[in-house]
């Protein structure tokens, strides 16, 4: 993989950026996620996290199953603030 391969479409992060960060010694997915803001977009990582895991596995020689998934955050799907705050007229 080379050039401008976009891994996280929500936050526009490329494969090169991810590989460079791993090469600099950051190999914990929780750290990669936060430094590059991967998995923090509206899709909450459904698209990009599996791809990041496979890059990480390839570069660190681990099996993908050995890499823990980052903690998911509620809400699973975006909810409108007005609905949670208790109606439009409150």
């Amino acid at each position, binding site marked *: 993989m080379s050039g401008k391969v976009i891994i996280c479409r929500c936050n526009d992060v490329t494969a090169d950026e991810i590989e460079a960060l791993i090469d*600099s010694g*950051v190999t*914990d997915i*929780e750290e990669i996620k936060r430094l590059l*803001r991967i998995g923090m977009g509206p899709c909450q990582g459904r698209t990009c996290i599996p791809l990041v895991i496979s890059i990480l596995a390839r570069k660190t020689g681990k099996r993908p199953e050995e890499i823990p998934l980052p903690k998911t955050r509620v*809400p699973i799907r975006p909810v*409108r*603030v*007005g609905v*949670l705050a208790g109606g439009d007229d409150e």
Partner: protein
Amino acid sequence: MSKIAVIGGGIIGVATAYELAKLGEDVILFEKNYFGSGSTFRCASGIRAQFTDEANVRLMKYAVERWERLEDELGFDINFRQTGYLFLATSEEEIEAFKANIRLQNRFGVPTRLIDMDEAKEIVPILNPEPFLAGTWNPRDGKANPFKTLFAYLFRAREMGVDAREHTEVIGFEREGDEITAVRYRSRGKAESVKVDAVLNATNAWAPTINEMAGLKRGIVPIKVYKHQLVKTELLEKGQAEPLVCPPSWNDAYIIQDGEDGGIICGAGIEHEARGLNDVEPTYDFLRGVLRYAVMMAPPLKYAHVIRQWAGFYAKTPDRNPAIGKLLEDFYISAGFSGHGFMMAPAVAQAMAELIARGRSKVPIDWEWYDPYRFERGELHTSAFQIG
């Protein structure tokens, strides 16, 4: 050169390791999980000198001056921006209290001023001015990216030779009398030990456990751990709520626009004592409660979507001020930062490193105010204003 063990890989431990290395010390840094995994990576990123007592105002004034130069010093983009803090009053009595705070802050060179709601609305376009009478505004307060800041310190610390280890848990000390001679740690299931000359406990919520390992009473620094949460909305156009905006009388509720992606971060003092140090489960009552305040503050928010909610720890001492200082001849503590450990880190790290390496510090820090033994002596200070 002495060998110093720093325990805790949050912003305080990492920044102090960096400062110690700058002073030429040989540092080994332990983080049991991943760097930033405690409170640091869960924080709201706010930085302010608007405190209500002399010690914190002076320390934070100095910290902000460090923040202003930190990007150049560390050579990394940490996205520090002086977008201000705006506290809002809902009653005449509160305005009087705000005025007293402003006088105190001005006395120490912090340029806070009282502003009317027209000006507040200009600064925060989505603000609903109706419920408020006036605000205190300090344009030099701000925010920075906690992830980038921690890693900037970490990269530079490693460059200067700090042996920084993650997934490595400190499990005990070897002692001769009162003196700590070695740190025992476990990594990948294997226990080992390393000889050290001094130890810094920078484990915040976990600090009582480490104090106990040093042979002290668990409650010598009585830290209670509360779950503090945040909710974040989808991205909004930048410039809608860049400052941290907070009416303290609304249960310390606040909003602040994320300096990276423009989502609105919403917090409030709706707290739960943590059930344990693994309990970072977000709660539904918080989600609903915080959004009620947020919508009253900024009505257009009701059309935005919530995309994330998370919880972290406020490690609180009884007076909400951290414990910073020496506990034993070779054992130091810097912990119990409530809602303001991130903003204080550049100043506290420098002060602590200088204390350990030189026995005194150039930082304007009131050691008595933060004295870790004050609880034991029953001297509490006025509560530090605790929100982010």
